[in-house]
């Protein structure tokens, strides 16, 4: 793949002896890397290894504590991201950084509006925005306010925004984490095009097969150190995993004792969430892991938010055979159902509060000593959770917002598990999670099921659903369109159901 692009010896961008500390915590140590035009350079590593931090330094969002950055061999220091962009370095953030009250087009052109005379030229910007988004393989109305888009759509808008700037180095920090395979495929194609036009691409992802497909070079970070840089051709995903984690990750998905009882734990009948999902019926067995597949916008999130009482909805819900009604999420929590949001920053964690407060927020009842919150008990629980879920951060007193993306996900998981629920609904459980941790989370889900709990997993990663679920429900445009089990749990069949396409078309996508 790589040889299709022009190769030059002189790297476009280099870093030497780069390190970064947040206060006393050193998160990057003596990193030296060079990035070449027309190449995709992947950076992989565990959650909290320092990937995003490195990228932010390259794009001028953070200042390095030590070290030099060179562009075309000449050392540079950036005063901010604007200056980096002026030098042709663009960054697609791991988090969504868009103004929610502005439209898609307004966001795309924010800070560089096109104008005719005094006026901004909204017509042209809308057209160009529509095209930029279309180039990514999606259709989003450029006049829609970003606050109304789904996370995936926002991610795509963010990518479109970065690519609108004339660039020489394009950095993608987990761009596909919230995308479905269809969109991922389209995006990888775009990245391939960018590379072929002679741009240096930096690519971060926890999806190792994806890295294998797209990258020319792979560098591995572990705990702030650069441990290896290899041509991608020399590495298989397993090798990458070993380099990242420092041990063998031979089997990602745990063995499942297929014998989930068929005794229903949760029965949903003719359930509708106005505007998002209609007439859904499904049953979750005790000890079962039920997957929900579908494209972005299929309404999976909304359906299950409706079920747990987070949205106005109507329909019948039976819990262990008994009809129940959840007026709000507090009711469903008390009944033993917890829901983990896909939007961990917006709905999962209090980013401005510390880890302890976040961990116990939903389950404070368990930490009361009379009227008072028992902080010692809270701290003990935090210690346990840090161990059990392998949450990695600088110090225990840090704010949740300072954790790396993946570690935030682990903290959210730990927070909800504090409730010791009977039924767990996990929306996008491994979004942005490294492969080692993924393995742990899968194991954890499997253990829950074995312990007689029931789990619903909503995921846009089909291999993951296939790997851990007993059964997969597929949604399309707000309706449940089918269900696959056993040997029918293949990407092909799921895509057919999810898209409503013919089998041949689907095969193309799933390939």
């Amino acid at each position: 793949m790589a040889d299709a692009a022009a190769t030059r010896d002189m790297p476009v961008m280099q870093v030497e002896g780069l390190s970064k500390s947040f206060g006393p915590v050193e998160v990057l140590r003596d990193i030296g890397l060079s990035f070449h035009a027309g190449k995709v350079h992947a950076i992989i590593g565990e959650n909290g290894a320092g990937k995003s931090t490195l990228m932010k330094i390259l794009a001028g969002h953070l200042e390095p504590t030590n070290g030099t950055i060179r562009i075309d061999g000449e050392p540079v220091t950036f005063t901010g991201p604007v200056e980096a962009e002026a030098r042709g370095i663009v960054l697609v953030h791991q988090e969504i950084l868009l103004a929610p009250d502005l439209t898609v087009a307004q966001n795309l052109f924010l800070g560089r509006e096109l104008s005719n005379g005094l006026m901004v030229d909204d017509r042209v910007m809308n057209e160009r925005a529509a095209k930029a988004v279309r180039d990514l393989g999606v259709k989003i109305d450029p006049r829609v306010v970003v606050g109304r888009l789904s996370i995936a759509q926002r991610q795509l808008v963010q990518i479109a925004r970065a690519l609108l700037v004339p660039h020489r180095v394009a950095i993608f920090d987990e761009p596909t984490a919230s995308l479905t395979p269809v969109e991922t495929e389209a995006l990888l194609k775009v990245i391939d095009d960018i590379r072929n036009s002679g741009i240096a691409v930096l690519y971060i992802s926890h999806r190792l097969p994806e890295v294998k497909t797209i990258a020319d070079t792979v560098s591995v970070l572990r705990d702030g150190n650069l441990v290896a840089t290899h041509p991608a051709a020399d590495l298989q995903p397993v090798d990458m995993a070993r380099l990242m984690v420092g041990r063998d990750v031979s089997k990602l998905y745990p063995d499942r004792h297929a014998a989930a009882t068929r005794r229903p734990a949760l029965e949903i009948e003719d359930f509708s969430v106005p505007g998002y999902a209609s007439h859904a019926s499904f049953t979750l067995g005790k000890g079962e892991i039920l997957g929900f597949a579908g494209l972005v916008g299929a309404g999976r999130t909304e359906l299950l938010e409706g079920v747990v009482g987070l949205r106005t909805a109507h329909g019948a819900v039976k819990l262990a055979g008994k009809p129940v009604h959840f007026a709000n999420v507090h009711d469903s929590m008390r009944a033993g159902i917890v829901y983990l949001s896909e939007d961990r920053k917006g709905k999962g964690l209090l980013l401005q509060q510390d880890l302890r407060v976040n961990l116990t927020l939903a389950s404070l009842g368990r930490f009361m000593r009379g009227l008072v919150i028992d902080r010692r008990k809270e701290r003990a629980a935090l210690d346990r959770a840090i161990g059990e879920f392998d949450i990695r951060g600088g110090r225990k007193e840090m704010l949740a917002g300072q954790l790396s993306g993946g570690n935030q996900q682990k903290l959210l998981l730990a927070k909800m598990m504090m409730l010791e629920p009977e039924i767990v609904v996990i929306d996008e459980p491994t979004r942005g999670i490294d492969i080692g941790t993924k393995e742990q989370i899968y194991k954890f889900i499997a253990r829950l099921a074995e312990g007689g709990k029931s789990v619903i997993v909503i995921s846009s990663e089909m291999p993951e659903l296939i790997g851990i679920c007993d059964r997969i429900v597929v949604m399309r445009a707000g309706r449940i369109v089918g269900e696959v089990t056993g040997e029918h749990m293949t990407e092909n069949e799921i895509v057919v159901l999810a898209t409503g396409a013919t089998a041949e078309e689907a095969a193309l996508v799933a390939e």
Partner: protein
Amino acid sequence: MTDLAARSTKTQRSLKDLDLRAVAPFVALLLLLILGTFANPNFLGVDNLLNVLTRSAFIAIIAIGATFVISAGGLDLSVGSMVAFVASLMIMFMNSGAIADPALMLVTAMVLAIVIGAACGWANGIITTVFQIEPFIATLGTMGIFRGLTTWLSQGGAITLRSPDLQNLYRPAYFGQVLGVPVPIIIIVATAAIGAFVLYRTRYGRHVIAVGSNEDVARYSGISVNRVRTVTYIIQGLCVAVAVLLYVPRLGSTSATTGTLWELQAITAVVVGGTALRGGVGRIWGSICGAFILEIVGNIMLLSNFISEYLIGAIQGAIIIIAMLVQRSLMRRN
């Protein structure tokens, strides 16, 4: 492949929804107009409505500036005392007799008022942005400062425009009409049109909304957040100055009580007009509508015969809450 991924977003729905939000305050206004006709048959008379619109000019014009400040995520509590301060200085200048020719004197005084207004706004902007003091506190502080200075200038009393020549020359600026439309109404519309143009059509206006919507995003996009915010305060100062230009010819005098509580009225007008206090949304015409609503509520109170004068405040409060309820229920309907 690409076409598979291309799915329709619900554009229509979101657009309709948007309109309803913008329209809600006007519906509330309409309901009030209907209520008013029941209160008094004179209410719907041209004279009365023109009176009400005309006297809403001060709050309406100030509210235009407040819309900028609030959309950018700020707040300005000092506008009421700024009116008193700028008006006092303007009248004192006119009383100074520094320029003999009345017309030239008037024009110079007007320019002076505008410059002082902009400077006061700039001061607010600098304190909130460069010194990073919460706008609420910063402008509460400058509110005390402007009010105190006004009291000091007037030695607690009134500052009255002395020259009858100037007074006669200037009077039409408030009491005059153009083609039957009172000047203040024309000024409201003109200021609002300029405000709407700047907020919706220019790059700066876009940046205002971006800063109010998400400061970090704005900063990463190369927008100088402090500059944008400071300029919103300067715009607020300019609007205050325009209000002063209309205020001075009306009574020809100011006192230490001029403009008390106007800041709350202006903010109320802005919020009733559909602008959110958290920033990121700005509705200029809504704010104008909000100012009309406030003035009409007072007018209906006075024109209706069945309310004890002691209860007027209570009923005004209740009506504002009800107006907001009407808005909310319209929005939620969508």
